């Protein structure tokens, strides 16, 4: 039985649990470190070309999105002319029903699958399972997740949280249950583990009647679908079965064949840190050039919305639909590197998941989704790494404001809303602010007396505070407020003029117009 993300707790709860798993943190730090270095070397190799290439990649995807209806109609036309059957699906349920009905019409009880984020998003495997159809994942990492009855934790390498020893154990325990067993003398060498997957899956490839894939790109001009992969499992699923169903998000469209160019140069370097991935397949309907059949002769394409038009309607957020699922943003994210992907509660984890999930499902619907825009330090590393220049920090901030807006009428109001309202009241009037500052100075003197925590430099700080303030102070030291506010100091010293050694006039000509206390 496969697992789903349904019922996952909000990010802070899930992240706390993940942080306690030292094996997970070790596996992630190692894997993301390896991939970051590889990517960086290749980006440097591109030199001054990389930035203009990113701009071109972003421009191609943005051009596709800006006139999406036209390009989709053209894609449908080209696909139909090439002999493919085009289906449209408003949501996950509708898309799953199309795939299931194609499979049923051929009387099969199994399909082989190319790794595909769209089919993971719509939970196709679980749907097919309920209809008595087994969906065999054939990508190595997806196979590890499926056999381990686990959840994916990375876009490119769903089993990134597993190390070689854990993978060996999963293969030994589970392969025999669903097909050819792993050899008894299986070691944990990656070559040996990959060899076991080759043997295990080959019989499934050779007998499969129906293949299911996603697509990295769909070219409107020609009706060509593109699958970018490494292992050859994709090629197996795309060529050996008699029937092929491809589930494609409507944002995957690229206007012309020539415009694949920057994307084909950006994607492999950004995702696996290679100049080019081992295999890319491009096919245009049931190909029969020169009258000879090559590959599946019945080809279906399911164009899926499932929240994409909701994201498209968000002026700030729509840029997220440029995403080409390279996962570079995950690998550079300091939050992802520590919590791993499960904490995000979705098949789309990491920085892109933190914006894509709320954009696809909407904010204010559930607590888990609303927690995602906060799963970031806003450090901006994701934007720097993104090959199609999605300004993830900008969208995160935008979504945070939407989450807050969604809770404006909450009864009783959130502690944060009360605090903000109080701050608004105080800042609106100088005499109110003066009163608040006096109170704060008093509390600062009390805290300085009572506090047992000091910050570097000797400033006293509050430890964990009770009540709603615990949410802030649980993970941070709150510096004790200064005994005297800046405004009170200014009044007392006439802007510093009556205080020797610190006045602006005396400091002129130096680079330090204010006094920095020396530390002893």
């Amino acid at each position, binding site marked *: 039985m496969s697992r789903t993300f349904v019922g996952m707790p909000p990010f802070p709860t899930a992240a706390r649990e993940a942080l306690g798993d030292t094996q997970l943190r070790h596996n992630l730090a190692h894997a993301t470190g390896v991939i970051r270095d590889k990517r960086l070397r290749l980006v440097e190799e591109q030199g001054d070309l990389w930035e203009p290439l990113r701009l071109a990649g972003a421009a191609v995807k943005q051009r596709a999105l800006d006139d999406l209806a036209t390009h989709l*109609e053209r894609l449908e036309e080209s696909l139909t002319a090439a002999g493919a059957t085009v289906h*449209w699906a408003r949501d996950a349920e509708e898309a799953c029903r199309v795939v299931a009905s194609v499979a049923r019409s051929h009387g099969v009880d199994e399909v082989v699958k190319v790794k595909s984020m769209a089919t993971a998003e719509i939970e196709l495997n679980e749907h097919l399972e309920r209809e008595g159809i087994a969906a065999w994942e054939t990508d190595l990492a997806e196979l590890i997740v499926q056999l381990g009855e686990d959840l994916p934790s990375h876009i490119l390498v769903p089993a990134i949280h597993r190390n070689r020893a854990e993978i060996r154990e999963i293969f030994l325990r589970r392969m025999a249950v669903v097909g050819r067993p792993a050899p008894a003398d299986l070691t944990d060498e990656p070559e040996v583990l990959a060899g076991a997957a080759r043997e295990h899956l080959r019989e499934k490839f050779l007998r499969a009647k129906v293949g299911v894939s996603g697509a990295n790109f769909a070219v409107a001009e020609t009706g060509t679908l593109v699958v970018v992969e490494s292992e050859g499992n994709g090629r197996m699923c*795309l060529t050996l079965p008699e029937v092929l169903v491809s589930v494609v998000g409507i944002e995957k469209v690229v206007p012309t064949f*020539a415009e694949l160019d920057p994307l084909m140069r950006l994607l492999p370097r950004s995702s696996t840190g290679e100049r*080019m991935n081992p295999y890319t*397949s491009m096919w245009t309907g049931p190909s029969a050039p020169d009258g000879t059949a090559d590959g599946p002769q019945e080809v279906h394409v399911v164009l899926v919305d499932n929240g994409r038009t909701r994201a498209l309607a968000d002026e700030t957020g729509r840029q997220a639909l440029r995403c080409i699922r390279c996962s570079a943003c995950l690998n550079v994210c300091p939050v992802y590197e520590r919590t791993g992907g499960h904490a995000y509660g979705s098949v789309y984890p990491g920085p892109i998941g933190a914006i894509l999930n709320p954009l696809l499902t909407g904010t204010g619907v559930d607590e888990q989704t609303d927690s995602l825009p906060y799963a970031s330090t806003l450090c901006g590393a994701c934007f720097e790494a993104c090959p199609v220049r999605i300004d993830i920090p900008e969208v995160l901030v935008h979504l945070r404001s939407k989450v807050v807006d969604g809770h404006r009428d909450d009864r009783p109001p959130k502690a944060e809303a009360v605090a903000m309202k109080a701050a608004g009241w105080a800042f609106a009037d100088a005499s109110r602010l003066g009163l608040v500052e006096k109170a704060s100075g008093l509390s600062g003197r009390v805290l300085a007396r009572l506090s047992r925590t000091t910050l570097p430099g000797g400033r006293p700080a509050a430890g964990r505070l009770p009540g709603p303030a615990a949410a802030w102070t649980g993970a941070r030291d709150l510096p004790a407020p200064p005994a005297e506010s800046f405004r009170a100091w200014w009044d007392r010293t006439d802007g510093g003029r009556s205080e020797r050694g610190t006045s602006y006039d005396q400091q002129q000509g130096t680079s330090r117009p204010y006094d920095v206390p020396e530390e002893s």
Partner: protein
Amino acid sequence: MTAHRSARDEILGRVRSALAGVEPTPEPVVAPRAVHDPPRSHAQVVDLFAERVADYRAAVDRVAPADLARHLASLFAATERVVVPSGLDGVLRAAVSHPVVDEELSAAELDTVDAVLTTACVGIAETGTIVLDHGPGQGRRALTLVPDRHVCVVHADQVVPDVPDAMARLATSVARGRPLTWVSGPSATSDIELTRVEGVHGPRVLHVVLVG
């Protein structure tokens, strides 16, 4: 108007209303290309191709046209079962002692052969990629997938500097409905601890014979 709009009309309608007021860009985007000063000669481009293919731990042999047949013959042991596309050039075919000619072999039959010999359509120097458009000498897609060793003959004049040059050459094949397979080294995976391992489902050995 029917009461239930089709999924197609509903999705396109949602797309249009989401994009109200957005101006489309009618002109295709042309991506920048690497500029080399001084410009690279074709010989340098071919050298780079050989180097970059080898980077993927693929075997690369450079042979003169006159030596091609002899060299190919030396690559296959007498006992090996080598499959060739039915459209393969006679000279190349003659280099294999007892070729299995692909006349719609089943996947299971292909699984019993040791190697496959084909030509290619384009070579991309910058990325070390060979592209097949599955024309006569290149066979259908399964042919270069199921056997464990792929020997691929690439001519120097098929090698282009970078991806945009390849896209321009491949446009005609795509317009004619041909599938494309881009191959960069042997089958590989980085799924275990993000460490690259050569050899999963596709050919575990890629042998490129560069002619000229």
